[in-house]
């Protein structure tokens, strides 16, 4: 299996590489269009700030490539947020794959949300074998609201999308690579069964 992690200079991807390796696979980190188009699966990571990440995607032309991909794509954290219409963070236009606008958590709770929360309303093969209310690890200040593409929700001040799916595009707000055995199984589902 050819597995590609999109390289657009965003954040720390070493832990994703480690998690994939623990599952017995190797991933290529690349921004080359040929490599991306011929991949079996694509991982779209992201840590950091939305507008500068989007700027990096634009300057490498990946913003045009990603929405046209036909193979399974998994956006993680900021990667998922950038797949939405827009983000309130830095007033950023997104890739428009998911018809949702990402907004900041209200100040009635501590922001960022850091730690282990639960996912429920699990709807996709991504969550095969994952019990409702399993704990996953999150670090984020902005969230995607619930919508037609929501395949898992979580609660922090309100109910929001913990995972999204539309056709071949998947996005998770949490970090599967850091979510212990639950996260490993979700990654494995993406790699093996989707």
């Amino acid at each position, binding site marked *: 299996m050819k597995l590609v992690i999109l390289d657009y200079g965003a*954040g*720390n991807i*070493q*832990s994703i590489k*480690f*998690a994939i*390796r*623990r599952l017995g696979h190797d991933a290529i980190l690349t921004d080359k269009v040929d490599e991306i188009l011929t991949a079996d699966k694509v991982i779209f990571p992201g*840590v*950091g*700030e939305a507008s500068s990440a989007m700027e990096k995607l634009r300057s490498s032309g990946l913003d045009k490539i990603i929405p046209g991909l036909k193979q399974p794509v998994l956006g993680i954290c900021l990667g998922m947020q950038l797949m939405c219409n827009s983000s309130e963070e830095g007033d950023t236009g997104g890739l428009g794959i998911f018809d949702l606008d990402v907004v900041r958590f209200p*100040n009635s709770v*501590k*922001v*960022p*949300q*850091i*730690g*282990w*929360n*639960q996912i429920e309303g699990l709807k996709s093969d991504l969550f095969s074998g994952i019990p409702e209310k399993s*704990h996953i*690890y999150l*670090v*984020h*200040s902005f969230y995607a609201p619930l919508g037609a593409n929501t395949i898992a929700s979580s*609660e*922090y001040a309100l109910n929001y999308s913990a995972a999204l799916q539309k056709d071949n595009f998947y996005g998770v707000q949490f*970090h599967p*690579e*850091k*979510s*212990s*055995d639950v*996260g*490993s199984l979700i990654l494995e589902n993406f790699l093996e069964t989707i």
Partner: protein
Amino acid sequence: MLTKRIIPCLDIKDGRTVKGVNFVDLRDAGDPVELAAIYAQEGADELVFLDISATEEKRKTLAELVYHVGEKVNIPFTVGGGISSVEDVDILLKNGADKVSINSSAVKRPELINELVSKFGSQCIVVAIDAKQIDDQWKVHLVGGKVPTEIDLFQWAKEVEQRGAGEILFTSMDHDGTKNGFANEALAQLSALVNIPVIASGGAGSISHFTDTFTAGKADAALAASIFHFKEISIKELKSELREEGIPVRL
């Protein structure tokens, strides 16, 4: 519901764990990677590695350690100790650390927080604050608590938040090592003052101390070292009891 985090802290010197570690099922008590894996298996929510070595080789050894921990451990971990530049942080994150913790270097040059936040994001910058109560005032201390300053804990915490830190790790030097409980009054005050997570550190001696710091102290997470290293409390037992007390934890 977001759960309260339990965080074992490992002191590292020249790539090995130091201080007493009393894990019977550990082949080599000095191996931080093995110890980290055991804690992760037992249900620790995060890990903190605090590097106390002062050798010139420090940077390289620490980067190697981070790489090996990241290879093996599937929960988040923070690395701290002597980090003072963007380059220091870059190396650690590239090798697989999730967050870094800065302390004295941030007090000496507060702009460092802004620089790290703009380069790496708030989510991976933890500011550790050591403080001690002197004449009813909480004063920030540097260099592992050895050097007192005139800086007020609460003013500094507010500034740290405004500069973009993602979390505050507060160690009360009055409580550290006493096993008499965390500094809950100061913690509750901190938690009300800032709108970022606060990690309680210093004073853990019993399960009820954790219950107290999550309720009275309003802490978002609690860090401890020796009670876990010496198996005085197991993480599983601690979390089960916390759940019985109605505190949300990941089990």
